[in-house]
C-alpha cells in the first residue's frame, strides 16, 4: 500500500528524518516507537503532506503513485488519514457539519457524488455508537471545550466516517484514561480489514495491548534502527530506550 524509500526531511535547517525505509501492506498494522525527538511525528506529518517540512530526499509511493507533489487534501482524497496528537479547535463549526464537509469534499476530489443526507445520518449514528459517543457530540463546535479524551475520540470518529485506506494514529493514546483508551482501540480494531492498514505512532507500549501490531519499528535519531514483531514493543516497555540509544551511539 505504502512504500517509503530512503525518506529524508528537515524543518528549517534541522535534519529530522535521515533515511526512512518502510513498507506497509493492506491488512497490516505497524507500530513506530521511539524516544522523544526521534522523528516520529515528523514522519506522520510528512506522509500527510504538511508543508512546514521540507523533503530533501527519498520517495513515498502510495498505491503506485508518488505522493510528493500532492497537497494534504489530495492525499486525504486518496485515503490517507492522520489522527492528530493535538486536534485543533474550530469554534463555530459543528462536528457534524465538519465531517459532512470533509466527506463530501473527499468524494468530490475523487469525482464521486455527495453522500445522501440519509446515508450520512445513519453512518453518523453508527459510528458515534461504535465509539460510545453521546449524540450531542455532533452538534458541538469542533473540539471546542473538549477534554483530551473527547478530542481523541473525535479523531477516531472522523477516521471511522472517512474510512481511509491508511490511518496514521499519532500518539493517540496520550491524554486518554484507560476506559477511553479501550473505547478508542476497540473503534480502531472494528475498522480494520484486509484492505486497509494502520500505522500507530506511540511512545508507550500500552496502546499496543489493545491494537495489536504485526510489526514494530524503533525510530531513533531519524532512522528505523530496529524492526520486529509485537514482542519488540514488550521488550522496549521492559528495558526502556537506553539500550537502543547505546547500540546506536
Amino acid at each position, binding site marked *: 500500500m505504502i512504500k517509503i524509500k530512503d525518506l529524508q526531511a528537515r524543518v528549517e535547517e534541522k535534519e529530522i528524518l535521515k533515511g526512512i525505509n518502510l513498507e506497509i501492506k493492506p491488512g497490516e498494522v505497524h507500530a513506530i516507537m521511539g524516544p522523544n525527538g526521534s522523528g516520529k511525528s515528523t514522519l506522520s506529518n510528512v506522509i*500527510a503532506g504538511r508543508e512546514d517540512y521540507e523533503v530533501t530526499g527519498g520517495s513515498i509511493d502510495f498505491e503506485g503513485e508518488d505522493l510528493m507533489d500532492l497537497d*494534504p487534501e489530495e492525499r486525504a482524497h486518496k485515503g490517507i*488519514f492522520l489522527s492528530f496528537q493535538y486536534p485543533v479547535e*474550530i469554534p*463555530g*463549526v459543528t462536528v457534524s457539519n465538519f465531517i459532512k*464537509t470533509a466527506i463530501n*469534499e473527499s468524494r468530490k476530489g475523487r469525482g464521486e457524488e455527495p453522500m445522501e443526507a440519509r446515508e450520512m445520518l445513519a453512518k453518523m449514528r453508527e459510528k458515534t455508537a461504535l465509539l460510545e459517543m453521546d449524540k450531542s457530540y455532533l452538534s458541538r463546535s469542533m473540539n471546542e471545550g473538549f477534554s483530551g479524551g473527547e478530542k481523541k475520540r473525535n479523531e477516531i470518529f*472522523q477516521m471511522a466516517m472517512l474510512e481511509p485506506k491508511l490511518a496514521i494514529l499519532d500518539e493517540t493514546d496520550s491524554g486518554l484514561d484507560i476506559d477511553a483508551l479501550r473505547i478508542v482501540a476497540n473503534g480502531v480494531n472494528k475498522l480494520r480489514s484486509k484492505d486497509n492498514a494502520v500505522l500507530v505512532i506511540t511512545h508507550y507500549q500500552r496502546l499496543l495491548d489493545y491494537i495489536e501490531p504485526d510489526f514494530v519499528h524503533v525510530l531513533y535519531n531519524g532512522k528505523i534502527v530496529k524492526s520486529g514483531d509485537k514482542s519488540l514493543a514488550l521488550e522496549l516497555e521492559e528495558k526502556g530506550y537506553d539500550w537502543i540509544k547505546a547500540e546506536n551511539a
Partner: protein
Amino acid sequence: MIDLAQDLLSSFVVAEPQLNGSKNLGVVTLRKEALDRFEASGFPTTRNEEWKYTNLKPVLKHDYKILLKGDDAVSFADIKQFLLSDLDTYKLVFINGKYSSWLSETTHRDFDICTFAAALNKYPDVIGQYLGKSAPEGETFVDLNTAFADDGAYIRIKKGLTVDKPIEILYLTTNENGPSFAQVRNLIIVEENAEVQIVERHQNIGEQQSFTNFVSEVFAAQNARVQYYKVQNDATHASLVDNTHVQQARQSNVHVGTYSFGGKLVRNNLHFYSAGEYCESHMDGITIIGDGQTVDHHTLVEHIEPNSYSRELYKGIYLGKSHGVFNGKVMVRQKAQKTNAFQQNDNILLSDKAKVDTKPQLEIFADDVKCSHGCTIGQLDKNALFYLRSRGIPKREAEGLMTYAFASDALEYVKIPQLEKRLNAVIAEKLGINLEFAL
C-alpha cells in the same frame, strides 16, 4: 479642482428656503448655526486625530451634485434584492434622498413609521424636543447634515408598544447624470417599554460616484429595546459617512450591528450615550472587504450613570489591497461606578497588501469599574489549516471555513433569522465558500 465645501456653502443659499421645515424658526436657526460651524471647520484632513487613518481626499474630489431629485423610474423589482423578501416588513425607501411613497409601506396606526420630511412639517414639538439632541454639534459631518438634511426615516414608537414586524430603511442612489452627494437623516424615538427592530442599508444602483452623509439619532427611553442592523454592501463607487448617535435612558437595551462588505469608503461614527442606570449597549460588526475598499469604525461609548453594561465586538477580514480602521473609545464618567465595559477588535489579514489600524481607548474617571479591551491582528492559524486539509477539505474551502468560524460570533446577537441567513450568504459569497457546514 472643485471645492466641495465652497460648493456646499453656496448651494445652501438656494436650497434652504425649499427644505422641509423651512417655516419652523427653530429648525431654520439650527440649520444656519450648523452651516456656520461647517464653514469654520471645513472637511477634516488626516491631520485631524479622528481622521488620521482615513483620507477623505479621494472621495471629496468628485464634482458632486448637491441638490438632488427623486427618481420615479425605480420599480419594486429593482430594489427587491436589497430587501428581506422572505419577511413581512414596514418599508421606508428613499431615492436620491427623497421619499418614495410607492415603494414604501408605512403606518401611523399605532406607531409613526414615516418620514423625517413629514415630521419636520407636522410635528414641530417632537422636532424641537429631539432634533440635534443626540448628534453633537461641532462634528463636521453632523453639522453639514443638520444644515442640509430634510428627509429620511422618522420612527416613533409610543410607550409600551412593540412594533409587530421589522422596519426596513433603504436609501438608494440612482443618479445617472453625474456624481451625487446626499444628506439624509433618521430620527428614531422609542418611548418607555417600547421595542423596535430596524434593518437599514444604503445602495447605489446607478453608475456614478455617490457620497452619502448620513445622521441617525436614536432615543431609547426607559426600558426601551432597540435592535438596529446596518447592512453595508454597497457598490465600489459609493462612499458613506454614517453618524449614528444613540441616547439611552435607564434600563434601555440597544444593539447596533454593522455588517460592512462593500462600498469604496465607509466611515461609521457610532456613539452611545449610556445616560441611565442599568443600560445595556451592544455594538458589534463584521467587516469583509477587498481591493480598493476602506471601512473605518469609530465608536464611542460614554457611561454616565452607574451599573451599566456595554459590549463591543468587531471582527475584520481583509482581502486584497484593503484598509480597515478601528478606533473604539470607552469613556466612564466619575459617577458611573460599577460600569462593566467589554471591547474587542479582532482582525485577519488574508493578503500582504491589506492593512489595519486599530486603536482601543479607555478613559476611566470612576474607580470601581470592570473594563476590558483588546485587539488582535493575525493570519489564519497554519496548524488549523493543515488539520482541515488533512481531512480532505481543499485549501480555499479550509481558509473560508476558518475565516467564517472566526467571524461568526459577531452574528450571535442578530435576532431576525432571515437577516442572519442573508448575512451568512453574503459572507459565504465574499469568502468564496460553500456555507453548508455552518447552516
